[in-house]
């Protein structure tokens, strides 16, 4: 966990808290820990990343130990354990996408953004992550930004997307 970020208290907005309670109620009595993954998604949606304070808050909501949250958050790749940029580009680096030129397009994307995998642009707008298979192999190369899939990528298409998101 990062030490460089100023500690702050995290609480869900009233809407998210109500959503969180609805999620917790889905599971049988005593099995509220099942809500952990959905709640971490909710936390990340609100905070932009899965912060230590946020994880402690989720632990309190579920009445479990904070370590139970940390060990889960560190296992799954979708939870950003460090602050990220406004747009997180999750680029598929797996076989079928590579067959369709995924490696070349990734090189172009890195050059365009001026960053390497795992880094964030100086203006804080883009973070680049490489991920494993996004289940869109027939439409590769592919990357995902939040819930949106961008498919059949070419260098030109990448430029268009970055231009659009830079406005």
């Amino acid at each position, binding site marked *: 966990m990062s030490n460089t970020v100023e500690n702050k208290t995290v609480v869900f907005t009233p809407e998210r808290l109500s959503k969180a309670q609805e999620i917790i109620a889905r599971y049988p009595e005593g099995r509220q*820990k099942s809500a952990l993954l959905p709640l971490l998604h909710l936390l990340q949606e609100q905070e932009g990343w899965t912060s230590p304070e946020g994880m402690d808050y989720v632990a309190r909501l579920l009445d479990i130990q904070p370590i*139970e949250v940390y060990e889960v958050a560190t296992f799954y790749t979708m939870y950003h354990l460090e602050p990220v940029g406004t747009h997180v580009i999750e680029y598929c680096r797996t076989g079928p996408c*590579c067959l369709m030129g995924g490696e070349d397009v990734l090189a172009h994307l890195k050059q365009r953004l001026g960053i390497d995998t795992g880094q964030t642009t100086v203006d804080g707008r883009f973070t680049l992550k490489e991920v494993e298979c996004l289940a869109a*192999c027939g439409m590769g190369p592919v990357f995902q930004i939040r819930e949106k899939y961008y498919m059949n990528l070419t260098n030109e298409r990448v430029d268009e997307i970055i231009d659009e998101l830079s406005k």
Partner: protein
Amino acid sequence: MATKILTEHINVPGIETFDVYRKQGGYTAVEKALKTMTPEAIVEEVKKSGVRGRGGAGFPMGMKWSFLAKPEGVPRYLVCNADESEPGTFKDHYLMKTIPHLLIEGMIISSFALGANKSFIYVRGELMYVIHILEKAIAEAKAKGFLGKNILGTGYDLELVVQPGGGAYICGEETALLESLEGKRGNPRNKPPFPAVKGLYQCPTVVNNVESIATTSWIVNNGGDAYAAIGIGRSTGTKLISASGHINKPGVYEIELGVPVEDFIFADEWCGGIRPGHKFKALVAGGSSVPILPANLALTLANGDKRLMSYESLSDGGFATGTMLGSGGFIVFDETSCIVRNTWNFSRFYHHESCGQCSPCREGTGWMEKVLHRIEYGHGHQQDIDLLVDVSKKIEGNTICPLGDAAAWPVASAIRHFRDEFQWHIDHPAEATQPGAVYRGDMALV
């Protein structure tokens, strides 16, 4: 016209909505099942259909259902495995986003047959937009009385919960999925006990794939015998194939099992052939974990007969000359593909996705990735090829779950069929590291 069981109405505008789906005959199977059939009778029809698990393992679904323990006073669960993450496989993604009610209808029928009152659809977290589509469809079905309390006045209650994963391929393994659903790391459990006895929350649980569950509406409407009449031998019914790689028409196709592999690749109805100006070099038929085959073995059996798209034909000859249908992730390679680079790529995937619980998998997948990387980048040693074979053998069969096998098979099979290509990389380090360098040798291209 080939029979379409899952995709018949997939192009109807608005099919993602309850009303349009209903107009196309949707939810009639729920009415038939809940109003006129007993749970046992539904299980019997599914057994008769011979439908096999479409997630990759191919275990007969009816038999799996019949193993479910039924102790008094203990809830039972149905969990749909929608954690599709196998490279090359994207059919469940397609099915859920285009026709979500087909899965929901299947979930209702299957849950009723199994005596479950709360069922889960565990969807990989990357597909958050699909999760929203499913949640919307569930809300529609509930508003129309097909979900919730006292469905259609039959006295049967069912609540459906859509659960997002967190980005871990291992959660597609059924016991890891259950761990994850309980809010834990996705570490696979030792079996036995099997989920049918102790599954979710230590209660009897059936875990089925999206495509498998989606077939149940058709089986209930048309009968298990009608389903079994489609397909070939023990490979009954239809299968969704996700086709990717160097073909003219990548996409998801529903085929009747038994179609020749050659037709599937070259006919306009399906993949439409290899991209212009290129030759067919190799095939991964069932997702990245299954053994790769060179073109000649992909199209024909060792005895010269045509190889078919079926569980039996694809595995003909064992791993020496065959492979597996797996999840139906069909990846086609033309002659520009470097097998060493692709094998390294797959190896990196399995190393990344190993949960780390078993030493052979945790250490072995990383070791294979490292050795493959150095061969690909021109630093391979002469003994590296045998070393890879040795490491893969030491992983295979020595882990709690099949991820170890899934990591070992692509490496072992690539060396089995393309050893010259690995050797060429070791012998010609300067050439091998050039962009686009591929050893062509005397490879039989088609």
